[in-house]
């Protein structure tokens, strides 16, 4: 009793001391770490082995750690910024069931160990089933594993947990394995495993196994056709032969019996056919590539019977390979069918000999869609010019679903006389001039190799004018360049149509829009741009070598135009050849989500951005309004989106 009291007092004293040390360290900001876990485990086993002496040992060991920690802290001080200690894995696993024999498959679960790690810093486990110093199972990040002990005896199972840096811990379990008896595991081979009804099959049960008994101690019996009735008695001979009278997928059953009268059954499928591999079916079909409109003609005339060239063969055909035969046992090797279904279709040919044995061959026919006509897309680079202009027309945006663009043939009707101009035949792009003002419909036609064609028509507008003109090609953005007619006024070159450039980069400072966000308006009127587009370099609005004109350049344009600088002559078709379109504008000033994009002015007036602000930072636009007879600069809010014309750098 006295001893127990003394021990209890010592325990209480030790706990109080530990708490005090911990509190002091926490006040000082130290990180508390578990130390020498293995020693505590040893102490724990000491308690189990030695009773109260073990308790005394544990107390003394605890006091020892306290003193050590206090001395270290006193000498070294505490570093509050110390890195966390490297992870120390703690080994633990469960074995299920906890006891068993040589037939038991034990499951070992160390998930609680691998769960201590992460994907990047895993805790891995490895296993030694016999404590022979050789690890039977290499490191794994998975904690679950099964194992079977085939020999009875005592085993010491060691599991080691490790981090990738080598921090380790182990756990050991001792287990006794008793002798167990398991039923045999029958297995057999069939030779051949698939053949026709003329074949004698060999069945060999030599693949059977038994954990406790050798093969020659086992007995076997057979059910050849799977009718649950044994066709033979038990026999020690593992090999037997059998011949079938009909074709079928036979579930062949083998039952094995060991000396303890334990039995098991194994079933394998044997395929007995009427196939004759001496028959070689060969089939061809004519069209390639085939389309939906083709009647596909098959020819099996080159099929043959090996070593019997005179054998009489009969032909059966199964379109779709659905076991519904469209033609059966025909003397003719030829067969035709209108499949009429797009995609791949399987056709089964069966060639049969005079014994009723046959061989099949699956032919695949891929039917492509009916040839569709090309899509002709006529683009006029400079839609308006004068009698001195070279007009650029191309068909490079045309395409065809079934044929390469390069296989399409181009034809042109320039003068709307219904006749294709021979000098332009086959050209995908042409340059033409017109000697008199007027509007000229131009028709282009693309024809594919199967003579299907389509046409596209657009109009070239030739005005009376004597300015020098040209074409500007903008290769930015999409695959096909954008073209602009250009005109030289004074000594400067201007684009004759509004800019059509939409940055595609997500990182661009700005983007453009079409009026009412309608793509049709984009094609005719060009795009509308925010003010930032006039000065941003991410990206630059105008093509390389061109820029957004300044207010002074607009004023100089009007000076250079002289008498042509009137609203009427500035408009499309006018003598100025600037071909102004009343493209309208977008007002982005509204904060209401319903009126945020307010478009106005289409067909009424046009404002073109200039690239400079005035002294007070306000933006200038060039304002053209035929209703109010306005052609002048205006100060505008930067919330507007206007079209842009480009001027060539000097």
């Amino acid at each position, binding site marked *: 009793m006295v001893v127990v009291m003394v021990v209890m007092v010592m325990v209480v004293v030790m706990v109080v001391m530990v708490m005090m040390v911990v509190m002091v360290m926490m006040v000082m900001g130290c990180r508390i770490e578990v130390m020498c876990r293995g020693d505590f485990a040893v102490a724990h086993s000491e308690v189990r082995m030695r009773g109260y002496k073990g308790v005394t040992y544990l107390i003394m060991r605890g006091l*020892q750690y306290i003193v050590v920690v206090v001395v*270290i802290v006193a000498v070294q001080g505490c570093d509050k910024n110390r890195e966390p200690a490297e992870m120390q894995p703690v080994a633990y696993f469960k074995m299920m069931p906890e006891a068993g024999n040589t037939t038991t498959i034990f499951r070992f679960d160390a998930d609680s160990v691998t769960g201590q790690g992460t994907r*990047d810093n895993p805790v891995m486990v490895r296993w030694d089933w016999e404590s022979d110093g050789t690890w039977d199972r290499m490191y794994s990040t998975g904690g679950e594993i099964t194992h079977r002990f085939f020999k009875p005896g005592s085993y010491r199972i060691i599991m080691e947990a490790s981090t990738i840096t080598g921090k380790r811990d182990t756990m050991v379990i001792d287990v006794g394995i008793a002798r167990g008896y398991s039923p045999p595991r029958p297995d057999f081979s069939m030779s051949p495993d698939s053949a026709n009804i003329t074949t004698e099959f060999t069945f060999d049960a030599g693949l059977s196994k038994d954990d406790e008994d050798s093969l020659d101690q086992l007995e076997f019996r057979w059910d050849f056709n799977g009718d649950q009735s044994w066709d033979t008695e038990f026999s020690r001979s593992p090999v037997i032969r059998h011949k079938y009278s009909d074709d079928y997928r036979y579930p062949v059953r083998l039952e094995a019996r060991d000396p303890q009268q334990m039995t098991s059954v194994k079933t394998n499928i044997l395929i007995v056919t009427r196939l004759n591999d001496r028959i070689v079916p060969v089939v061809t079909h004519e069209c390639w590539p085939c389309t939906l409109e083709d009647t596909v003609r098959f020819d099996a005339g080159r099929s043959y019977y090996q070593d019997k060239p005179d054998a009489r063969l009969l032909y059966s055909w199964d379109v779709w390979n659905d076991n519904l035969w469209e033609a059966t046992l025909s003397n003719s090797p030829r067969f035709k069918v209108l499949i009429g279904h797009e995609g791949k279709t399987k056709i089964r040919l069966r060639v049969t000999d005079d014994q009723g044995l046959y061989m099949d061959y699956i032919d695949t026919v891929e039917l492509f869609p009916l040839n569709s006509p090309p899509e002709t897309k006529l683009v006029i680079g400079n839609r308006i010019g004068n009698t001195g202009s070279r007009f650029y027309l191309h068909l490079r945006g045309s395409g065809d679903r079934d044929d390469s663009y390069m296989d399409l043939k181009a034809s042109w009707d320039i003068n709307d006389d219904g006749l294709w101009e021979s000098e332009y035949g086959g050209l995908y792009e042409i340059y033409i001039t017109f000697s008199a003002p007027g509007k000229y419909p131009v028709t282009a036609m693309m024809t594919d190799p199967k003579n299907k064609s389509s046409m596209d028509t657009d109009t070239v507008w030739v005005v009376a004018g004597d300015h020098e003109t040209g074409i500007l090609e903008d290769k930015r953005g999409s695959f096909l360049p954008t073209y602009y007619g250009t005109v030289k006024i004074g000594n400067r070159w201007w684009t004759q149509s509004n800019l059509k450039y939409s940055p595609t980069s997500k990182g661009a400072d700005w983007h453009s829009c079409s009026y009412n966000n309608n793509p049709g308006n984009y094609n005719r009127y060009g795009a509308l741009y925010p003010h930032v587009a006039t000065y941003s370099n991410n990206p630059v609005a105008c093509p390389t070598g061109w820029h957004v004109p300044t207010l002074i350049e607009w004023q100089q344009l009007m000076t250079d135009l002289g008498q042509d600088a009137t609203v009427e002559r500035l408009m499309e078709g006018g003598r100025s050849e600037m071909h102004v379109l009343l493209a309208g504008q977008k007002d982005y000033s509204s904060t209401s989500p319903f009126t945020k994009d307010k478009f106005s002015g289409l067909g009424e007036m046009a404002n073109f951005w200039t690239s400079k602000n005035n002294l007070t930072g306000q933006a200038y636009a060039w304002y053209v309004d035929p209703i109010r007879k306005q052609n002048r600069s205006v100060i505008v809010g930067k919330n507007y989106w206007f079209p842009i014309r480009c001027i060539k750098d000097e």
Partner: protein
Amino acid sequence: MRYSLITAFACILVFSGCETEIDVVIPADPTPVVYCILDQDSPVQYLRLSRSYLTDNASIPPDEPDSILFARATKVAVEEVIDGKVTKRAFFTPVDIAKDSGYFPRQEHWVYRADFIVKPETDYRLIIYIDEYDQIAYSSCYTVGNFEIINPLYSEVRYIHMLPDHNLSFYWTKSLNAAIYQLGFVMHYLEMKEDQTLEKEILIPLKSIFYLQATDNLFSYPINSTNFYNYLAETLPIDPTVLRKCMTIDAVIISGGEELGYYMRIQEAGQAFNLMDYTNIKNGIGIFSSKVLRRINGFSLTEQSIDTLAYGHATRQLNFVDRTGTRDGR
């Protein structure tokens, strides 16, 4: 208490008496050098494992030939992990390989091989345990997802036009976890010399595109036709006695995992002595990632392209026949 004082004193010595200078000429620990790109189109996977060694001069081989490879007994495993559980485990075993010409410090060379199929978009973990040093190297990666080529398609009826006025655009869908796509062609051609005709093929890599932070689900890239001819000119040997005939070309896109993307991007930086080489091998250096390939076979070149291959300035010395199957009508 006696033991406590002794232990404390020893600790004080240990913590207070450390020397802070490092001797840089001591032998280095063996560092595993790993290269393993899981091939999601193949049932066979390969891994190259070697080890680094310290030397003052890289042109001088190591003193001990063995020091460039670990022992064959080194254990290498890959684990497939689904929902946090190891669902499959494959072990790599060494297979001998033939050496290229040149100096090698040891007679035998081997790579590690394992037979398993890699699943897309799945967590794979590589564990290497080097017995002789009791050392573990580890890595993990998510395999890339499957994807499809959208264009070019229908090789049975479509032609590839490789001329500067018509740069073919590849279109393909996103491959999940991928950070790099390589576009190219495989050209199948005949080489005819006297009475002998050989079927050959050549991979023509045209572009590596990095999408390290891609959010789009559809990608496209226009192929520069000029690169096609230039690569052939640089790669195929000029042999006036050989006549070549282009048969078909296959369009190929390979997607590679994020780790491979970072790794190749750094490699492309072209720093001969790049001290910041990317690695995703813990306790080692190297790369563990995956790739998947998509291929549309059997395109024909247009007649203009075949003529350009035959007589274009880049490839005219390679002796390809023109659209008529001859050269200069002979």
